[in-house]
């Protein structure tokens, strides 16, 4: 159950990466405003370069923003980063474990960096390893673990300080579907335990299981709402037509059926709110249509509606 208390406040957040040599400066984040509630699971959804990783790096204190303010648990990220860090558990896109050390050595070192008392640390490590089905791997070097198991160790490491905010940056990148599913099972179990989870992803199914989805594109936060609400906001159904001449067919459908659509990635796309007769469409254009899809809107459709582009990498699969 989501608490109504705001845990994270982001106001007017912008970031510009400075130019280097012939590379011009790049504005990666543009005036982002966002509030995240205690216990909420929020997905930052967007393609590569949309600014979601920059936002996450700022939230983890790894990057100082050029403009704007962030408060986490009442602490200002700019003036009191150490207090902010005490509340965070982070799983980075790139592994952050020492591969030459064992699972338990990594966890002990991480716990000591967070100043956890030795006795408490030992019991927390045992409990986490048990809970994440890693107990029999505790003495193994990380380099000997599979990608999925190593990811679970990362999760254990992030959960060790019992953070109020768990930040996951594309945590399932490079995992096979089974490992991905197992990882998400662990993350979704945190729901109801009061931990706020922020996860970046470009995978639709991962975003769809979150409480809210923040859609990002070219450094801007375009919309943030529960996934079902986002999907409903663009209509009841989405009709997609593949054909040899999409522009010609679009003009014909506009003229004959007064239906507004767009051409995205070479396919015709219509968001439909009112009842629609497929019979009439097929009677008039069947000879031109190579493939027809009529479906409830997905988060990809929402992204297309907002940006005119599809999400890169959606074909990589989901949960």
């Amino acid at each position, binding site marked *: 159950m989501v608490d109504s208390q705001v845990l994270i406040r982001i106001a007017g957040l912008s970031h510009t990466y400075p130019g280097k040599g012939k590379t011009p400066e790049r504005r990666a984040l543009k005036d982002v405003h966002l509030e995240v509630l205690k216990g909420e699971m929020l997905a930052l959804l967007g393609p590569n370069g949309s600014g979601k990783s920059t936002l996450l*790096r700022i939230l*983890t*204190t*790894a*990057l*100082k923003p050029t403009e704007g303010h962030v408060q986490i648990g009442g602490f200002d990220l700019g003036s009191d980063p*150490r*207090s902010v*860090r*005490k509340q*965070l558990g*982070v799983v*980075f896109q*790139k*592994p*952050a*474990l*020492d*591969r*030459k*050390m064992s699972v338990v050595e990594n966890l002990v*070192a*991480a716990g*000591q*960096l*967070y*100043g956890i008392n*030795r006795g408490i640390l030992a019991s927390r490590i045992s409990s986490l390893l048990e809970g994440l089905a890693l107990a029999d791997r505790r003495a193994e070097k990380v380099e000997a673990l599979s990608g999925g198991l190593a990811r679970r160790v990362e999760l254990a*490491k992030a959960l060790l300080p019992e953070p109020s905010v768990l930040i996951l940056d594309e945590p399932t990148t490079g995992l096979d579907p089974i490992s991905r599913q197992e990882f998400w099972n662990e993350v979704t179990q945190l729901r109801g335990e009061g931990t706020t989870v922020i996860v970046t992803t470009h995978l639709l199914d991962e975003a769809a299981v979150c409480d809210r989805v923040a859609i990002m594109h070219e450094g801007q936060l375009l919309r943030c709402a529960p996934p079902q609400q986002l999907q409903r906001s663009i209509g009841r159904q989405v009709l997609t037509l593949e054909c040899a001449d999409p522009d010609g067919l679009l003009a014909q459908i506009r003229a004959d059926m007064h239906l507004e659509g767009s051409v995205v990635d070479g396919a015709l796309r219509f968001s439909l709110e009112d009842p629609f007769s497929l019979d009439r469409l097929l009677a008039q254009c069947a000879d031109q249509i190579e493939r027809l899809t009529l479906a409830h809107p997905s988060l990809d459709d929402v992204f297309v509606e907002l940006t005119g582009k599809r999400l890169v990498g959606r074909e990589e699969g989901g949960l």
Partner: protein
Amino acid sequence: MSATWVLARREVVRFVRQPTRLFGSLAQPLMFWFFMGSGFSQSFSLPGEAMGYGEFFYPGIVLMLLLFAAIFSTITLIEDRTAGFLQGVLVAPVSRLSIVMGKITGGTAIALLQALLFLAFAPLAGITLSVVNVLQLVAACILIGLGFTGLGFMVAWFMDTVAGYHAVMSVVFIPLWLLSGALFPIEGAAPWLEWLMRFNPVTYAMITLRAAFYMGPEQLLADGVFLRALAITVGWSLLTTLVSVGVVRWRSDV
């Protein structure tokens, strides 16, 4: 437990768990000392002293060992960044000072360990070390190790690749050692070279280290040349440490 201790211990554990690194760190200076000491033994002479090149070069090799230990331990900083470990440390609630000190003290401990192992070969160079000399050398090695590791840290923090770091090592670190009086005495060098050597801070580390081999505490405290060299060595060791902390605070976006 302090973050400095956690990070320093990790450096030492990783070093000890790599037998090839441990072997190489001892074999390389021994080979250098043996081949160069043998090669120059007939052509080298110090005015007014009976010291052979093997003995003269021995403290220079200890200095090289400290430099290389520091270089290799700070290379791990680039590896930690590339492998992702560093990002996890930077988002932990620890001060930037403790992160820098963890790396620097870890690197210094490794340098000291290697130096102590190498000192066991001192009798082969004709140098007899008393317990006091060994204690003096430990102190000198810690001080110089801190300076070199701090220097390596400053450079490694800005490097994206180990190859880039090797380039800096070749054109900056190695010449610092070559022009420190480790290979040949500063007196008798060409005037322009002598001028360069006197501006090289590592020269004063060499003077400090060489003095610790031969003098006792009372002699050291009465020797103006040693005290000046010690002061300069303390100065640049502190400076490299402080600058390292500064660069981490300035640029933490790994």
